[in-house]
């Protein structure tokens, strides 16, 4: 690995700090509040997603025009664009079932630990198990298919 800028890790930490504080403040770290949204009892979650997307939308639109390269990595500023295929729908649907059942998503689960919710370790353990299952499955599928196609 190449040497990183000394401020790289501190900046990542500060970004995570603000991110996690926001998840706590907005009560997204509480599965009950997410479930209240999904059950149409409190639509506040729309303002969390909307507020976050507005801020990031402004930054993703303006920053690449104002600056050439990121100061801590020297990388150019790109947008977060991922290719579309049926995995987006299949994975999105599986995630949807899990999110609807538990009321928790990855970022909110980390934050939930921070607000003292040790019970969320059940969800975190489940997420690691799930990520491992798909990784194991895809690693082996890719291995058996390498002669055919270079799958993602």
């Amino acid at each position, binding site marked *: 690995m190449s040497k990183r800028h000394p401020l790289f890790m501190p900046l990542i930490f500060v970004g995570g700090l603000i991110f996690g504080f*926001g998840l706590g403040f907005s009560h997204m770290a509480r599965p009950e509040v997410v479930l209240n949204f999904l059950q149409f009892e*409190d639509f506040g979650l729309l303002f969390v997603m909307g507020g976050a997307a507005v801020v990031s939308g402004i930054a993703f639109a303006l920053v690449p025009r104002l600056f050439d390269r990121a100061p801590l990595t020297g990388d150019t500023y790109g947008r977060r664009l*991922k290719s579309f295929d049926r995995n987006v729908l299949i994975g999105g649907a599986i995630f949807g079932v*899990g999110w609807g059942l538990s*009321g928790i998503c*990855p970022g909110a689960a980390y934050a939930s630990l921070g*607000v003292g919710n040790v019970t969320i370790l059940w969800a975190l353990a*489940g997420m690691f198990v799930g*990520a491992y299952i798909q990784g*194991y499955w895809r690693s082996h599928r890719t291995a058996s298919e390498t002669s055919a196609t270079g799958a993602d």
Partner: protein
Amino acid sequence: MVTELFAPALYETLFPVGISRYAVGGLLVGLGAVVIYLGTGIPAGASTFLESTLSYVSDQPRFQQYVSSRDWRVIFTLGIIAGAAVYALTFQSGLVSSGLYEPGTTGELYEVGGITLWLTEVQPWRLFLGGILVGIGTRIGKGCTSGHGVCGVGSASKTSIVGVITFLIVAIGTAQVVMALGVSP
């Protein structure tokens, strides 16, 4: 004037605890992502941490692509935990209050050393089983609520917008069915 006629009741129904804590929290979530983006050019998401951290303990080829980013993803996650802890220390504990912050009544509060902490009442089997599906789904679907929902939608990525609409609709359907089956909390 129209708002004064019918909106209060409607607003009260849609947003029983108001919108300020949600909007302020959301702006901060976005700001956290932007701070990282500004400094590094990285559009960060939370769910890659699951796979990148597995690369420390597993040789599965799938996880090896994340070896180069796994250290900072651990720091990002520790930052998220610490940020939420700062919230617990301040607003959740009542040390700081604001007209923009509504405490809420969900779950169960407990105290450790003068800090008010919070516990969910959602049953562990829901968290564990839901967690497994979240772990599988976010990784196959190329992102979660932060990667697709915050950075992807912020990038006006059609893939992310479709991803978000997919998981929102399915999650609403799932939660409604679970509620109809009488599972609570």
